[in-house]
């Protein structure tokens, strides 16, 4: 187990290293940040001075090594716009995003698993077919459109839900969290619904497919011949087996939820790091973009690691080596 974890840690570092290369060089080809920063009537001399100040006049390779050196010290540079540490900006906004992602993931799981189990165990029932139709809609409707429809219906037409912001926040473990206040909870519902719909539908379909496969297995029939009750048959004997392939895919789905949070946060003016990213892209605020990408890459890698651990702890046939 220990050996496995150290091996995985090495892999994680390697992946992050590769990501840093890609991020840095791709960033270097996207627009000239200097032009965005200086006033439109700046002279060439002023532009050049800004360029030197930012270190953008050095060769790319040198810039990259400076970049890596700084990252290792936790320094992603200063935001061109806010004149503040980029990483601090991101971390300030991270709780809002993580909260939204957490609620969305939870919502997906709570809704998708029971429905998926039901639809997989009783595929011929009419309700199962309705569930499947619903999930198909969930997958195919464009995300941003769903968000806008939610705002239109619940915030504009019926005026029952707020359409933007986080509402009231409280301090929790040093983070500003909104789900613990009634107002904040109300604010998170619509964005969380929008953000979860697609992954919910995918999780549901995967669970159903897994269940359908598992229900045909001999061990299910054997369990039935032992008189195992319906609930324990479906949610223990069958679901546990059905989830093994689902878990891997769902790990990737959580990553996708984080990525899609940028869109949701923009639509709902949710003050998270996704919205910060979009704002930074609009302003060519390169250090913030880079910091965001590196942080998200780190979260992805960490998620994958956790998924693998969960996966191996469920399936005794996998030997950790």
């Amino acid at each position, binding site marked *: 187990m220990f050996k496995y974890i150290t091996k995985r840690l090495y892999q994680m570092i390697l992946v992050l290293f590769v990501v840093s290369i890609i991020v840095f060089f791709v960033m270097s080809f996207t627009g000239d940040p200097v032009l965005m920063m200086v006033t439109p009537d700046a002279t060439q001399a002023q532009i050049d001075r800004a360029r030197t100040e930012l270190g953008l006049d050095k060769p790319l390779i040198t810039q990259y090594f400076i970049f890596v050196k700084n990252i290792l010290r936790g320094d992603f540079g200063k935001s061109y716009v806010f004149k503040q540490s980029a990483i601090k900006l991101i971390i300030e906004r991270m709780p809002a995003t993580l909260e939204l992602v957490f609620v969305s993931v939870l919502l997906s799981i709570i809704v998708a698993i029971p429905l998926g189990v039901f639809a997989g165990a009783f595929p011929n029932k009419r309700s199962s077919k309705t569930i499947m139709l619903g999930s198909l809609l969930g997958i195919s409707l464009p995300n941003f459109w769903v968000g806008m429809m939610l705002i239109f219906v619940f915030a504009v037409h019926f005026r029952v839900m707020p359409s933007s912001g986080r509402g009231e926040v409280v301090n929790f473990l040093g983070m500003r969290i909104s789900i613990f206040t009634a107002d904040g909870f109300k604010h998170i519902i619509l964005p969380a619904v929008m953000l979860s719909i697609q992954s919910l539908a995918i999780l549901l379909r995967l669970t159903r497919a897994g269940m359908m496969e598992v229900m045909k297995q001999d061990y299910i029939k054997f369990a039935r*011949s032992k008189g195992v009750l319906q609930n324990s048959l479906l949610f223990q*004997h069958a679901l546990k087996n059905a989830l093994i392939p689902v878990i891997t895919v769902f790990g990737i789905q959580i990553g996708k939820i984080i990525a899609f949070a940028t869109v949701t946060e923009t639509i709902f003016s949710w003050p998270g790091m996704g919205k910060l990213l979009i704002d930074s892209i609009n302003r060519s605020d390169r250090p913030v973009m880079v910091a965001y990408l590196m942080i998200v890459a780190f979260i992805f890698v960490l998620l994958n690691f956790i998924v693998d651990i969960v996966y191996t702890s469920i399936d005794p046939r996998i030997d950790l080596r």
Partner: protein
Amino acid sequence: MVEKLLEVKDLKTYFHTFKGIVKAVDGVSFKLNKGEILGIVGESGGGKSVTGFSILKLIDDPGKIENGEILFNGENLVNKSEKEMKKIRGSKISMIFQDPMTSLNPLYTIQQQIGEVLKIHTNMNAEQRKQRCINLLDDVGIPQPEARLKSYPHQFSGGMRQRAIIAAALAAEPELIIADEPTTALDVTIQAQILRLMKKLVKEKNTSLLLITHDLAVVAEMVDRAIVLYCGQVMETGKIDDLIHQPIHPYTYGLLNSIPRLNDQKKRLSQIEGMVPNMFELPKGCNYAPRCDYCQERCLKEEPKIREIYEGHRVSCHYPLSREGSHE
């Protein structure tokens, strides 16, 4: 003193498929006494498994028990609800499946899978259940049972898994065990061990056993009586010695002739010609007619009815054989 445990009367289990109705079990009747071992034999597709699953009412869509009675201790299981059946499954009647490699849940330990039966059907506490699991594993001949409790199925060999499955089937001391080809997936030496073990355990506890197999050689050593199924119908039934030494139905005779060990006086091994008929287009008259060496006009027109030839021996054939190989 023989006491009747199970009586199946005119059981019909049909599958309503897209292509048509499959009469997997079509009017099967038999009795099983307490402590008796009854064999169900026949070729693949004869309806043996479906008969077994029908008794536990584990027939899934599109299958349905259409007709008949399954009297277990005098109570008709056909009329029982799913809830009542759950109480019977595992406690009064349990089942052993063909493939030990796939019948155990890969994600649960051996102890969990045997203990589950006790958890559902007895009032034992966790400690008692553990002790009982150890005893059961010991009974079925698994060495160092205590150390094996926490093993997962993939850590067991096929033979050991089947022993664990037998332990689970015996856990709640059922009155009837249905074993569907329990040794077909195992190699020959293990087969013999498992069969001997089953016979011993069943006889010790006076449990009845319904042994489903396509292998008459297996049946010969194990069972007291046997029924021969073909296309969902009983062809012949009687004491195993009579069936083996004096088969009366041409189909039983054909089955016997295709076993090497039982007719060593013959040089060549014969085989039943032809194939099991398509279940959607069963022949008119006798189902066996297209393959039968003794088929006559009447067999093609009229379906034979099962009748008693002598005490305890029943046959469904217009022209039963009198002595081995010869005709009446």
